[in-house]
């Protein structure tokens, strides 16, 4: 028998790299198949006379969107207050306190509104998607759908995607609004600015494209959160403990991906608007 002459550690490094690479290729393949069929079922299939499940989409909208309104408005209200305080701390040195309104308005609509909303929705709905799909996978419910001739992507995932594609921009608008309200209240109580002047300054400083770019981001984040949650849920193999692991992984991965996409969009908008 011919004995390999390669030293063991070297062999292990090659083996490890190869294995990692292969499993990475494997998951990339799974992800692209998933993305492909989710988009097919959402956008192409309705054209061939299979409309999406409207009622299920509305249920998901209530769950992911309507029920998130309190937390999203609360958090962004406080972030608005904090932002205004930080801005005032710098701007009062120049006697330019009124520009607090510009800073709060622009950072909220372009950046913080979508990001805050996305992080909150990842935590609430991304994890819920992973847990729901994961426990259905573990209980063979997904297999049961397939054997009934029901496409699980159309039945389960499309309503979630539709819901987040609508609700993420809507929640972002709410976040923008309540953040600016927070800024206004702080400015008129502690900075001695009149609310009327503050709001006027905000409106004058915001261009429509500030709000629009924020909403485009929110839409993209909604797609990212849905796909990551669903992908992690579908990866569940064993039982309950795997569901827990995948749920955590879904939240972590979707927050990271949201930040990466945010960077990408911010660079894009920086050069093209």
């Amino acid at each position: 028998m011919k004995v390999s002459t390669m030293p063991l550690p070297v062999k292990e490094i090659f083996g490890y790299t190869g294995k990692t690479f292969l499993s990475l290729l494997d998951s990339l393949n799974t992800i692209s198949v998933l993305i492909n069929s989710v988009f097919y079922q959402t956008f192409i299939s309705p054209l061939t006379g299979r409309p999406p499940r409207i009622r299920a989409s509305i249920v998901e909208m209530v769950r992911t969107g309507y029920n998130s309104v309190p937390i999203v408005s609360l958090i962004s209200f406080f972030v608005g207050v904090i932002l205004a305080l930080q801005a005032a701390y710098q701007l009062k040195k120049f006697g330019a306190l009124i520009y607090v309104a510009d800073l709060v308005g622009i950072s909220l609509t372009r950046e913080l509104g979508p990001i805050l909303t996305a992080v909150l929705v990842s935590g609430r709905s991304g994890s819920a998607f992973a847990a729901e799909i994961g426990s259905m996978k573990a209980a063979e419910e997904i297999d049961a759908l397939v054997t009934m001739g029901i496409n699980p992507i159309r039945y389960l995932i499309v309503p979630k995607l539709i819901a987040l594609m609508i609700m993420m921009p809507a929640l972002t608008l709410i976040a923008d609004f309540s953040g600016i309200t927070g800024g206004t209240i702080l400015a008129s109580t502690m900075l001695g600015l009149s609310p009327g002047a503050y709001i006027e300054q905000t409106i004058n400083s915001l261009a429509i494209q500030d709000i629009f770019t924020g909403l485009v981001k929110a839409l993209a984040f909604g797609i990212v959160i849905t796909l990551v949650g669903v992908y992690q849920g579908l990866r569940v193999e064993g039982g309950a403990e795997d569901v827990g692991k995948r749920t955590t992984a879904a939240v972590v991965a979707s927050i990271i991906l949201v930040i990466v996409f945010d960077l990408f969009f911010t660079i894009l908008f920086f050069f093209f608007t």
Partner: protein
Amino acid sequence: MEKAIEVKGLVTHYGTREILKNVTFSIPRGMTTVILGGSGSGKSTLLRHIIGLLKPTKGNIFINERDITSLSEIEMIDVRKKMGVLFQGAALLNSLTVSDNVALPVTEHTKLQGSTIDIMVRMKLDLVGLSGSGGLYPSQLSGGMKKRAGIARAMALDPDLLFLDEPSAGLDPVTAAGLDELIVRLKKVFKITIVVVTHELPSIHIIADYAVMLNRGEIVFTGTMDELKMSDDPQIVSFLARRPPDDSLAPGDYLKTITGNS
């Protein structure tokens, strides 16, 4: 004997591990066939291939003369509408009531009106002895009731093939006997082909007309129940007598196993 299902040269793998090794057999129409075999012999794997959840490495599976290994997912839908499956854990959708679970295949595949579907659902629930439990959620059902609800859902579109994965596993003997009786009644009333994966000797004797036995991924027997009982193959004899098989290794093989030299 007319064939409902024909499996030819089926080879399957999980990863690189070969599970089914060139399996060939057929299942007769209008009878109840049991798939027997010890734990890990590949029964569930075989079932998952026959119902089209997994694609084989090699081989063909004909259901009503159509080779399902070469059908697309969309073409498979037609085949699937003609078959019902009861999973081992019943696999009812936990977010829907029992009635909505049974109605699901009907609402997805037909354009019937709500009131018609309601009547159909009530008939199916009555058939499996669950009339009155339609409004409950799966989490409120006992194990035996879940299995019955699963059978009602599998029968929702009046299939001509019914697959049951270990219907009586984990149930007390009385509940299990009730399910056996239901299976016998389904075959009598609807004249459908039923395929049951099971270990339970008492239920095999009640429900089965035909048997397929697997051992370590290979077919060791196919034939009628009478042929099975008359067989003198030691594996079959020990299975039917509930005796542990004579698995002891020759001394040389044993040495190889523990030293890892094969």
